[in-house]
């Protein structure tokens, strides 16, 4: 079965991880990655509050006020998982102990800058742990719709919203393609089924080059 849309994004992002990786996944599409992990790949999921080995939402009978996730929702801990204090949890993040993170975004640009925490005057939830993730995690994967609802590209030459992190994004995965972020700029590595290089040029503001061996995203 060929995935499309957000399923395709989650499925592609899941392929970045290896068995045993310690990862932090944002709420929404990023967290969907766990449903598409290849056979034999198990991850240690971190929750910022201080959980190593965050599990699925338990059945409601087991909901526990002392086990809430970053969004204040009930969560669980897998066998072998651990709890640590909050400052240590961010030591994992800033200290380079987390192998990868998948983040949603408002904007991302060709230099690897990301803007996902505020639209001044409109959307002001706060940055939570996003800036720490951008500053400390080796692999920062952006999982996003390619365009806004208006049709405007979310992949820009230069972000216009307040930044969350500077030159930190390593990979951009959308429902249409996968770009790698390199010191020379974006490289189109894979196309979603049904999309051509011309289609991507037409809906992307950022400059990019095309890998001669551009593949099919799955």
């Amino acid at each position: 079965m060929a995935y499309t849309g957000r399923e395709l994004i989650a499925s592609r992002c899941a392929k970045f991880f290896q068995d045993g990786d310690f990862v932090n996944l944002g709420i929404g599409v990023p967290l969907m990655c766990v449903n598409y992990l290849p056979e034999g790949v198990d991850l240690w999921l971190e929750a910022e509050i201080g959980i190593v080995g965050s599990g699925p939402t338990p059945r409601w009978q087991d909901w526990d006020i002392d086990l809430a996730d970053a969004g204040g929702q009930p969560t669980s801990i897998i066998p072998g998982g651990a709890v640590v204090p909050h400052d240590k949890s961010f030591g994992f993040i800033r200290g380079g102990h987390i192998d990868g993170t998948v983040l949603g975004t408002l904007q991302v640009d060709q230099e690897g800058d990301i803007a996902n925490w505020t639209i001044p005057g409109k959307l002001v939830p706060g940055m939570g742990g996003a800036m720490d993730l951008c500053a400390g995690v080796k692999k920062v994967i952006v999982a996003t719709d390619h365009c806004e609802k208006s049709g405007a590209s979310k992949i820009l030459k230069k972000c216009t919203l307040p930044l969350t992190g500077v030159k930190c994004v390593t990979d951009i995965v959308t429902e249409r393609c996968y770009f790698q972020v390199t010191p020379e700029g974006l490289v189109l590595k894979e196309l979603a089924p049904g999309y051509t290089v011309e289609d991507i040029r037409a809906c992307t503001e950022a400059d990019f080059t095309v890998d001669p061996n551009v593949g099919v995203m799955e």
Partner: protein
Amino acid sequence: MKNKVFSLDAVLEQIHDGQTIMFSDLHGEISPEEIITGMLEKGVKDLTAIAVASGQPDMGVGRLVADHRIKKFLTSHIGLNPMSRDQMFSGEMEVEFIPQGTFAERIRAGGYGLGGVLTPTGVGTDVAKGKQVLHLNGRDYLLEMPIRADVALLKATKADKAGNLQFRLASICCQDYMAMAADTVIVEVEELVEIGELGPDEIDVPAPIVDMIYVRQGEKRPLPNSWKRQIAKLQAKAEGGQ
């Protein structure tokens, strides 16, 4: 040994208008709810609050926001409390957004006797505005200053009469470092135990750090109202499916 167990009234005598207060809760999960109820009844106002998140309108420190008791909030997230957003937009409450890891380290610095913290978090963003940037070993770091409070209001699972604290599962969160960074440390506990019941390696915050213990009178671990609403829906759905 000095008994640190106090009544709610005695605890509230330490809490005044205009103080800077650290709260243990994020979205209200691990909150000294009965002390907060007491603060609302006492009428404490013009507070500067410090918490990872600003609670929810019906939970935790969020109740003080909803009742207009906070004039300034240092936090990383207000997304689950629309009252915080409204008061920030109207100018009633000043909000200083701090990246969550930096929040932890600034308070840790305040409690551990450090003059500040160097962190790469926030370099090149609005968080860096007005802050000194140091270039060390090929990387830029922001100089972030320590945070302390007049009072820390925490919630522990167990305490003994001497003031030793123990936290269950993820409820330790920011509480161990907050206990170090306030002049007066007040803890609402679910269960009071005898001295010696908590073994030396079962104590998360040792007695000398804690000033006052208040034993929660109501339900020990009530679920948030938002969870209760979700459970009611799930139950209704399950019954409907039978």
